């Protein structure tokens, strides 16, 4: 049978329209970014609320000062946190909102045992122990009945503030004391770019350096996974409904395969295009602030990696769908294969810190992990300024492309015969036999 492009387009159109009209597609399209947004807001809000609550509540602290260095310190004071830095200049220009003041009351205790008894009895909230050798060791101990997994640095800030002020009281003027308190926050950190220039590494750039590779890598991995899942679902459903044998009179297996790849890949790409547009639009401000521009080459290469990566995984999904007897079984098998595509995220920190490390290079050349790995490397480089050798990109794309062609040839053979195998999933020797017969 000759290869008819109009038939391929007919199949692709039906697959695309059927998929994007499904309620689940619309739910996925809208729900996924909303879930991320909701989770982000919820998590941040809960942390902020917790911090605000802790910073607004008066705290009574049992003080055990064996060093005697703080004997003359005030027994009560009101701590006011410094103004939080903002990445947005418009935000910075706004009038300052009133910051809460945290009343702190110290109750001197003779020893640690008595202090801890008070803590157990609920009479104090914290116990601060300053040892007799504080000047040598520089260490203090803080006790609190706290069940949280993570503590925040802001929690002990009022106490650190009080310790510094009273340690320097009489030995430094108030300006020096204030500068000492803010020293950690006022240091400008410069790093050298690959071109030799020095650039300020600010919070915005640091956040972008993590978020941009994560977001672009995530989008690419998701688009490949989603496109592959649509293929798997479509093939499994058609196999279960036994509709294909009637169709194979009018279209060749290769036309059917090409139409499905095109239509369902487009559906996956539609999802990602919408998410990416929303993401880029909403993050445009922070990208501009961090002086990060997305090079067009990154987007073009991203699209190429999607295309070849999708063909590679799509062919695998088609084969799995054709060889298994139902969707449940197909989903179980495909789940393991999909892990290969997303496993570069497990080494993400390594990718971000050293995009040209042996691990990062190796994974971006290995076809199953190439697309996601290279996207992580490229987007990390877009922020840090590191250069990925073009031969690595060309080799990675080439290897992935050749692998995709091999997988498509295998997938086409398995699809041709596997679609007519009903009720039984063949084992590996049987699959090899099918490959030889096809």
């Amino acid at each position: 049978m000759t290869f008819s492009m109009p038939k391929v387009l007919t199949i692709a159109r039906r697959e695309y329209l059927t998929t994007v009209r499904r309620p689940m597609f619309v739910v996925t399209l809208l729900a996924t970014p909303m879930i991320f947004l909701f989770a982000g807001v919820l998590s941040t809000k809960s942390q902020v609320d917790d911090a605000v609550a802790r910073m607004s509540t008066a705290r009574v602290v049992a003080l055990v000062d064996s060093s005697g260095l703080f004997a003359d310190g005030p027994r009560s004071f009101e701590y006011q946190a410094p103004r939080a830095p903002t990445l947005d200049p418009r935000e910075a220009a706004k009038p300052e909102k009133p910051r809460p003041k945290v009343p702190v009351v110290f109750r001197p205790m003779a020893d640690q045992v008595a202090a801890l008894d008070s803590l157990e009895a609920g009479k104090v909230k914290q116990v601060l122990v300053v040892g007799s050798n504080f000047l040598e060791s520089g260490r203090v101990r803080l006790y609190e009945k706290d069940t949280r997994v993570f503590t925040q640095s802001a929690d002990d800030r009022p106490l650190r503030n009080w310790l510094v002020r009273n340690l320097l009281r009489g030995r430094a003027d108030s300006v020096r004391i204030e500068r000492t308190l803010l020293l950690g926050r006022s240091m400008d950190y410069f790093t050298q770019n690959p071109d030799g220039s020095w650039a300020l590494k600010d919070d915005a750039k640091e956040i972008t350096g993590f978020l941009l590779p994560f977001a672009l890598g995530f989008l690419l991995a998701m688009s490949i996974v989603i496109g592959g899942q649509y293929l798997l679902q479509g093939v499994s459903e058609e196999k279960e409904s036994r509709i294909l044998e009637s169709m194979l009179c009018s279209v060749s297996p290769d036309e059917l395969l090409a139409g499905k790849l095109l239509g369902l890949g487009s559906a996956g790409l539609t999802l990602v295009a919408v998410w990416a547009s929303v993401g880029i639009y909403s993050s445009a401000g922070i990208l501009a602030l961090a002086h990060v521009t997305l090079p067009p080459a990154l987007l073009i290469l991203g699209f190429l990696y999607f295309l070849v990566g999708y063909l590679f995984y799509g062919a695998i999904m088609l084969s799995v769908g054709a060889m298994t007897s139902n969707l449940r079984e197909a989903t179980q098998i495909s789940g393991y294969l999909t892990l290969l595509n997303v496993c570069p995220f497990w080494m993400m920190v390594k990718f971000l810190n050293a995009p040209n490390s042996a691990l990062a290079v190796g994974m971006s050349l290995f076809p199953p992990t190439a697309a996601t790995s290279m996207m992580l490397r490229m987007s990390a480089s877009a922020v840090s300024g590191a250069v990925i050798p073009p031969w690595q990109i060309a080799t990675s794309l080439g290897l992935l492309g050749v692998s995709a062609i091999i997988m498509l040839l295998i997938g086409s053979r398995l699809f041709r015969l596997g679609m007519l195998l009903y009720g039984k999933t063949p084992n590996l020797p049987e699959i090899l036999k099918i490959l030889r017969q096809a």
Partner: protein
Amino acid sequence: MLQVRDVIKTYDGRAVVNKVTFDVAAGEIFALLGPNGAGKTTLIRMITDIVRPDSGTITFDGHAVSGASRPSTAYLPEERGLYKKVPVLDALAYFGELKSMSRADARRESITLLEEFGLANWSRKNVAALSKGMQQKLQLCTALIGRPQLLILDEPFSGLDPINVAVLENVLRQRRAEGTTVLLSTHQMNKVEQQCDRALMINRGHMVLYGRVGEIRQQYAENTYALHADGTPQRVPGVKSVVSENDHWRVALEKNAHPAAVLKALLDQGLAVRAFTPEVPPLEDIFVRVVEAGLGLDQGRSGPPTVDELQDVGGAR
């Protein structure tokens, strides 16, 4: 004309279709018969180019069915399904488009077919909303749309009520009159007798029966006559046995006896004979006899068995 010549298909060293040869003419309804596992589906898949034969040729109007000039073919398999979550009209028109029809033509012919099969009022409903019988009719429509030159139907009457069976029979007659080549695979032998011009039966991959339906039945006739008469017939020369059956007598003649002579002898007895007609076995009986005989097993033969062979293995009455 569909021509199948010496086609062999082997799986795991076993010939599931073994040197099968037959023709189906344009405008003919041809029955492909055989028990389950006989090789019918494999043979059909080779005709539809879903699988390729190991050897032999399959052509339609002189062109290989796997080539660029392959005929427009429609196949309704026994195990069949439909897209469930799409409107009936869209589901049917899609099959038309896959047969290279324009979208407008596909929709136009879909509407005509849906009207013909009484589904026009359901055209905007989802396929899932149709009853099982309605879905059967829609599946038939997916095969009929595009007016294929070669129509292959596997158990097309299954699941249809008598009214819709009549509708389908009428459609098949129309298509035959228009020159469509129809290959019908069914276990409903009465439908084969009513609808089909010729038949091929295969068993375990081998051809065991092939020819005009009437001739096949005649071939298996056993020189037995149904006698409708008032009174009780007496034994006459040339008669092997006389057995009473419901409202008539079943008269078995000896091998070389002449029916006219036997009838004359019966009349000479003074018997009031109302009818004396040769009994031809129904195709179903022949099917059972051939399959139970196990003929077509790998005996290196591709032709049909003789009547003597059938009788030798216990098929004779």
